[in-house]
């Protein structure tokens, strides 16, 4: 190898190294920006965490993250502020959420199977009507719902919050699963049919096992939306013993009198725990994809 060629290689290596350095600097810069952006997004949450450990009087007087005093008083006070310990309201929420999740999983998947695989009269019309029901704002339907549930004596029970879910009223999830089912190759159904399976067997043995990501999405989002739902729970549950977490949290506040901000932040933080856990354990089902599908 000539000197000139050798020099070329050295130069090229140097250039490549410099390029790599530049690339790694660029990556470092990107990460710094992302971390800063993430912290900015997290700030309100961090502020809530910090405020939940501050004495009530300091929350708005020292609005920074670091306070001159640290206390766990808010947690003790907030836990026992209402007539029942706060765990009571968490249990209420969990009952509603469990009912809603089970109801949605069972009913929406069944309805979606019907739309995706069965043939019946006016199928497209029904499907369109179902989709339109997504667009109705809650304020439009809550009054007729209230009248209905009030007449059958369901006010102050969890039934108004759960029974509709058992009837596949969450059109969004039906739509989600219809789209998912349509993506599952029909050949799988047909093979099962040749083996003598009917609709139930196809549904339970073929569709459901292949739809874990869609079911997980439904379960997780139903959990989050129901856990955070305030308005319908406020309307249907008026007895203080029936309050769920969001309704109970609002009773810490009183615009015309005294607000218990610190205890509210403390209890808010506690009520975030189930959401955090569901995300932590649920997300792997979300990403565990459709790779298991039989036919490519």
């Amino acid at each position: 190898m000539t000197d000139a060629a050798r020099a070329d290689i050295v130069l090229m290596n140097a250039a490549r190294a410099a390029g790599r350095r530049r690339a790694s600097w660029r990556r470092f810069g990107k990460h710094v920006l992302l971390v800063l952006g993430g912290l900015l997004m997290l700030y309100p949450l961090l502020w809530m965490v910090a405020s939940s450990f501050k004495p009530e009087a300091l929350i708005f007087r020292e609005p920074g993250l670091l306070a001159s005093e640290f206390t766990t008083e808010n947690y003790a006070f907030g836990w026992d502020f209402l007539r029942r310990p706060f765990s009571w309201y968490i249990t209420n929420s969990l009952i509603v959420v469990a009912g809603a999740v089970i109801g949605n999983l069972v009913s929406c998947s069944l309805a979606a199977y019907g739309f995706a695989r069965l043939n019946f009269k006016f199928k497209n019309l029904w499907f369109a009507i179902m989709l339109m029901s997504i667009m109705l704002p809650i304020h439009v339907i809550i009054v007729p719902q209230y009248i209905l549930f009030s007449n059958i004596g369901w006010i102050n029970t969890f039934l108004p919050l759960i029974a509709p879910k058992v009837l596949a009223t969450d059109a969004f999830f039906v739509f989600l699963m219809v789209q998912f089912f349509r993506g599952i190759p029909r050949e799988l159904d047909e093979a099962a049919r040749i083996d003598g399976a009917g609709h139930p067997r196809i549904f339970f043995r073929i569709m459901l096992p292949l739809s874990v990501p869609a079911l997980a999405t439904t379960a997780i989002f139903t959990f989050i939306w129901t856990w955070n739902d305030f308005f319908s729970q406020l309307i249907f549950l008026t007895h203080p013993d029936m309050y769920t977490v969001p309704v109970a949290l609002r009773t810490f506040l009183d615009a015309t009198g005294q607000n218990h901000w610190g205890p509210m932040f403390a209890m808010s933080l506690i009520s975030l725990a189930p959401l955090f856990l569901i995300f932590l354990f649920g997300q792997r089902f979300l990403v565990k994809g459709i790779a298991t599908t039989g036919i490519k």
Partner: protein
Amino acid sequence: MTTHLITPSRRTFLTAGVGAGAMAAMLAACGRGDAAPNSGGGGTGTGDDGGGGGPITMRTALWGNADRAQLYEEAAAMFAETLEEDVTFDMSFAELGPYLERLATTAAANDLPDVFFMRDTHVGWYGQSGSLLDLTPYLGDIIQTDQIGDAAIGDGTVGEGVYALPTHYVGQALFYDVEMLQEAGIDGTAITTWDDLAEAARAAHGVREGIVGLDDPTMDNATQRFLEAYIRQAGEEVFTPEGGIGFSEDTIGSWLEFWHQLRSDGVLTPPDVSLENDAAGVAGSMIATNRCALALMSTNHYVQVLPVTQNELALASLPVLPDGTEDWWFFPPILICAGANTQHPEIAAGLINFLVNDTAAGEHTLLNQGAPSSAAVRDAILPLLDDGQRAFVEQISREQEYPRRPFPVRPEGSEEVNASIGRNSTAVAYGQMSVSDAASAIVAESKAAMGGA
């Protein structure tokens, strides 16, 4: 693949679905079934129990937090003990905003609570819609009125009927920091006119480092009571008895100009800080946290401010226009009413009477909602109060002696008028709008909100 001997038929398939649903429903029904005895009855919650002499469950509701709910639950239980019938009062409560949303829904379903607290801003709408029980037949009979006076009955009168009565009153007041004003060479007790107030604010501004002279009340878009006082002093009304707009562009312009001048002199709370303070409540307000020398507040807030403030704060009456009307005084009432759908109107009227007139109830609930509307109850609770509370009640009692012309009930759409005033005042505070533009915008928008009246 494992094989199962039982092939699910269409029927088992359906059963599985229905079964899962039923399980969820049972889970729901069993969960806290014991928690709310009788209250899940739907309808009026009383319907099936009435008449037969069996136990009666009646529903009550109030806005506020759990502290207040407990006080009133206990007071209602005290009333229940005086009854021959076996009555239980079930109380629901929520913060004001959600409370009003819940009321609106239950009113639409004709399922209002039997007895509940009502905002003076909403009684007009509910009264007109026929959702509330007309209390006229019970006045002077089950409900005593000699201690609350005719003005109190006027507070709940909509059209021909009396649909609500005040249990408590609040008022408007001036709070000032005694030491700061002393350091500024101002005698707080001598502030009687709006000009006095402006002068005191200019003198006190910056008397200590970072101290604002006067808190800016114009950006509050909730009730606009101070503006209402000013308008009444000027001989006008915010709303006419017929439900129209009763104020002129000149009056609202002079009000905005008064604050604009002070803002230009730099002695008011900066608008950003005002907005921030909205979320902090009374305990986080400028005057409670000792960041200003003077502030216009609801009189009842004095009781809430005293425990949290570090400085000595004094309570005074609102400033007046020197050549204004004498009979402008008004007291925003906390009203109580009954649903027209109640199955037990006489017990409902009895509870209303108890909460308005009974001294034992007054001694139990004290000043939680304001100063009791009944003069006898006010006198009865005075010995139980601390100094700050007594100052509040005495100020209300004193001001109630002044001549008062009727205070028109808020008509439907009144919230939009308040919002318009708040919005345009905020634009002035931020310098986005001139005073005259804001004044004409407020008048135009308010007229539009009230249907052009």
